[in-house]
């Protein structure tokens, strides 16, 4: 895949790129379908329920049925909504979510794009989704939707700052923003992965990432007990499905990014386990991160708005800055 990116763009190559894009899209849709099933099942078990078990064997087709329902549902647009923006918002939310997946390397050789500033690309594009969420909330012309959109903007902007600064430590250690090189440079033993040397950065990154995903305990933008459903109250059917899809595609993206940045990507945890192909290790780590996110959702209550802002600005930001400082001092004293 890598060499082909440097060839000139002929019709044949363009066709191949498009096909790979479609393959990734189908994979992601499959992931989203079963991530939702898995989430419902796991949360069910954690709360001593059974979870979905009616549609198909073990309830495996439950999500498929739900998606089908959403697709054939009537598509309503409120009469006083801003029609154009109301239609634009779900697409504007989804496009960057899918776009960020391009830079994620799965193994040494399996990747879609090899950009020098891969990490920056990820962070930059995911910021556009925030705009789409505010836009969706505003275009609905509904006070709950607007409140949800505003909360989302405040939250995502205040947590984007610690998220970016917490990965600066990793960038300093690896000396590059190319995700593939970052994955490559982590060693064969699990204590050489970035999450132990960069433990402060790792913790800040995980907390900020959960907040960026708008998941419990930071799911204030769609706090159902206060805001009905937040920014997507007025959406139904197909467009609602797009917002949900965006949310789960970001789960995929963040889990993959955590794996590559901190958990050694495709490297085996112990050097003698090398014979297992890298993609298996990647998938195992990826699945553990997804499970962790679900586990968190079943465990934590939602925090208050003032606590949210306090945590972001007064705890995470100083911690991540301290991490950058400590990393710089360490690199200066011991590495150089």
């Amino acid at each position, binding site marked *: 895949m890598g060499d082909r990116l440097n060839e000139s763009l002929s019709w044949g190559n363009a066709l191949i790129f498009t096909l790979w894009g479609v393959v990734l899209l189908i994979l992601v849709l499959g992931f989203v379908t079963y991530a939702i099933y898995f989430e419902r099942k796991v949360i069910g078990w954690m709360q001593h329920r059974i979870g979905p078990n009616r549609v198909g064997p073990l309830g495996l087709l439950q999500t498929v049925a739900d998606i089908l329902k959403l697709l054939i549902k009537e598509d309503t647009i409120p009469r006083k909504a801003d029609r154009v923006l109301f239609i634009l918002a779900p697409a504007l939310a989804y496009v960057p979510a899918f776009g960020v997946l391009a830079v994620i390397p799965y193994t040494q050789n399996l990747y879609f794009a090899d950009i020098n500033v891969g990490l920056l690309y990820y962070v930059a594009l995911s910021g556009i989704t925030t705009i789409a969420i505010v836009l969706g909330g505003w275009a609905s012309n509904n006070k709950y939707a607007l409140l949800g959109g505003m909360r989302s*903007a405040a939250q995502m902007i205040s947590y984007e700052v610690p998220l970016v600064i917490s990965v600066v430590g990793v960038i300093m250690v690896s000396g590059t*923003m190319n995700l593939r090189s970052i994955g490559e440079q982590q060693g064969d033993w699990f204590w050489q992965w970035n999450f132990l040397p960069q433990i402060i950065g790792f913790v800040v990154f995980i907390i900020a990432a959960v907040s960026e995903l708008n998941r419990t305990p930071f799911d204030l933008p769609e706090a159902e007990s206060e805001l009905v459903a937040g920014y997507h109250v007025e959406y139904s059917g197909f467009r609602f499905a797009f917002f949900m899809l965006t949310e789960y595609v970001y789960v995929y993206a963040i889990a993959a990014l955590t794996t590559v940045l901190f958990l050694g990507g495709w490297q085996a945890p112990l050097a003698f386990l090398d014979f297992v192909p890298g993609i298996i290790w990647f998938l195992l780590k990826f699945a553990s991160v997804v499970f962790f996110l679900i586990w968190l959702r079943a465990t934590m209550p939602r925090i208050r708005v003032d606590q949210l802002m306090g945590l972001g600005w007064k705890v995470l930001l100083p911690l991540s800055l301290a991490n950058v400082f400590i990393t710089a001092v360490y690199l200066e004293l011991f590495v150089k």
Partner: protein
Amino acid sequence: MWNVELTGEFIAFFVFAVMIITGAVMMLSLTQVVHMVLSLLAAFIGMAGMFVLLQAEFLAFVQVLIYAGAVTILMIFGIMMTNHQGEGAEFPRAWHEGLAAVGALALFGLLFYAIRQADFSQVTAYAPAEDNTLAIGKLLFTGYVVPFELVSVLLTVAFIGAIVLAKKEAD
């Protein structure tokens, strides 16, 4: 007539150029603040695309990162501080628009003439840095360290000023 080769880069250039110009024109002609801010976003993303074409990928994504955040904030201010009950249309001033049209056409003519007359002889081939993030970082901390620090101080001053103003209002 078309003495240009139709490459992917050429098409991308035109797509981004149209995006920038449409965004800028819509920004001026729309009346709702949220719509205006959104067309501004289109122009910014077009600019980022231009930077990618010029192989300045660091600049391109920083552009998206900074301006996407800025657009969100601007949108929130737009929502909170303007009223949405149909801004009254200004009465048209025919001679005003006519004059503006003449001025714009004259400017276009001047620029077009200048560009056609300009001599773009082959200057030394420009070789972009292999890793331009690294190159920018090195320049910032060697040749341009004083301006860089001054800008940081300026930003800090603005930041503290904003906090002081907000605090005064809260009391």
